[in-house]
């Protein structure tokens, strides 16, 4: 098959983060600061990514603001012509840093919020954070930066969807991303506490649809349903090794967040290989590229070019075989796993909080 050029690089600059959100997609085993890529490593990766065809750069983490070289990295990305989004909690976003980011040419700042209810927001974040987030949002507005609000949705906040959308509008967001939790890393560990009930999902859908219409032309609303409640799986990052590259803080290049869980994949590091080699030659990026790896019912499915059989990592995590149909698909012979998970929506909300201290094996 012809090899696509990638369009998107997600750079997880660090796992360090002042927040402890139980829905975090970061792995349970997180590397410490001393294992992180250097400024020069990241700059080289951004240049190599642009030369491969990448246009979108997400600077994420952890909290990217803990990297003192963030402004330098943004400036380099912009020089290369990448559309650069900062994905931040806003903790640590001082006026000075916000001004420097603007000067460096940041295209878009996305600030996470956990809830409209302060006590619950801070319970989810595991730390006092609401005041700083509101100040960060005000700062981004004062500097006239392009601004998105991001709220990860789950059982503990989905009932306030309408209020969350109103909050984003009041903050002056250009855009709001409302994505139900995807179950990787810490989120997978907390699935019992995060999974919304069917009633919640059914109540939320018309609220989102009405708001999308109401704010048309003023605030763009992106609403992502929980895939566990969908009929078909999500087209995970546009297909394995098709458009998307994730680079972890220590330099591992991955086709998907959950890829580290799949055994027998040979992980490659941007310290050891050029990104072009990783994209075009590495076994990991071609492991599930195209559809030769597919089993039934995917292999003969008319939707296989639409959703690529769903997420390989989710298929592995839930069925033990990464070549299986993602069990969220209603056509999957293992769809009973999803029905079982949806029956678990009564667990008390006793979150397992994300923390680096619990890991750091390297």
């Amino acid at each position: 098959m012809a090899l696509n050029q990638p369009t998107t690089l997600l750079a997880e600059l660090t796992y360090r983060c002042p927040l402890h959100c139980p829905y975090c997609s970061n792995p349970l085993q997180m590397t410490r600061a001393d294992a992180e890529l250097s400024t020069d490593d990241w700059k080289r990766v951004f240049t190599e990514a642009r030369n491969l065809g990448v246009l979108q750069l997400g600077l994420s983490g952890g909290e990217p603001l803990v990297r003192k070289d963030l402004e330098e990295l943004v400036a380099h990305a912009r020089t290369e012509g990448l559309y650069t989004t900062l994905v931040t909690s806003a903790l640590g976003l001082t006026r000075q840093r916000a001004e420097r980011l603007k000067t460096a040419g940041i295209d878009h700042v996305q600030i996470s919020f956990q809830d409209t209810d302060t006590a619950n927001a801070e319970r989810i974040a595991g730390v006092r954070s609401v005041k700083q987030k509101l100040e960060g949002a005000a700062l981004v507005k004062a500097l006239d930066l392009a601004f998105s609000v991001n709220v990860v949705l789950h059982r503990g906040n989905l009932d306030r969807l309408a209020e969350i959308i109103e909050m984003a509008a009041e903050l002056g967001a250009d855009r709001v991303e409302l994505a139900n939790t995807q179950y990787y890393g810490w989120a997978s560990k907390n699935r019992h506490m995060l999974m919304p009930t069917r009633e919640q999902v059914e109540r939320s859908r018309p609220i989102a649809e009405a708001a999308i219409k109401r704010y048309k032309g003023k605030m763009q609303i992106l609403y992502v349903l929980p895939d566990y409640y969908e009929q078909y799986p999500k087209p995970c990052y546009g297909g394995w090794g098709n458009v998307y590259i994730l680079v972890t803080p220590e330099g591992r290049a991955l086709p998907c967040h959950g890829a580290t869980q799949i055994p027998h994949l040979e992980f490659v590091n941007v310290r050891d290989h050029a990104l072009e080699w990783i994209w075009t030659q590495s076994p990991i990026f071609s492991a599930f590229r195209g559809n030769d790896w597919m089993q039934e019912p995917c292999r003969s499915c008319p939707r296989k070019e639409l959703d690529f059989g769903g997420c390989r990592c989710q298929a592995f995590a839930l069925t033990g075989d990464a070549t299986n149909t993602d069990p969220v698909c209603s056509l999957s012979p293992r769809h009973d796993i999803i029905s079982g998970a949806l029956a678990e929506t009564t667990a008390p909300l006793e979150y397992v909080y994300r923390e680096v201290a619990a890991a750091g094996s390297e």
Partner: protein
Amino acid sequence: MPLSPAARPKLWRLARIDYDRVRQRPVLLYPEGAMFINDTGKAILELCDGTHSIAQISAELSARYASDVTVDVTEYLTTMFDRDLVRVAEH
């Protein structure tokens, strides 16, 4: 529904027109997206500054291309409006 000739489209402030030196073509970049555009699309979007009406954009480009492009311009901008990539000022 097509936009009215009096509508004054403005490129979304989160979107910017760039040139992709790898694919050697103009591209519209915006959060989590990229849309490859041709030179005509680029010419239309460059006039979407919130001051020109669709009628004015059509007139200018019809003169430039020596052909009436009103229908194409209106269709293109309607699609871009539906995709949230251009906004329309109240008039």
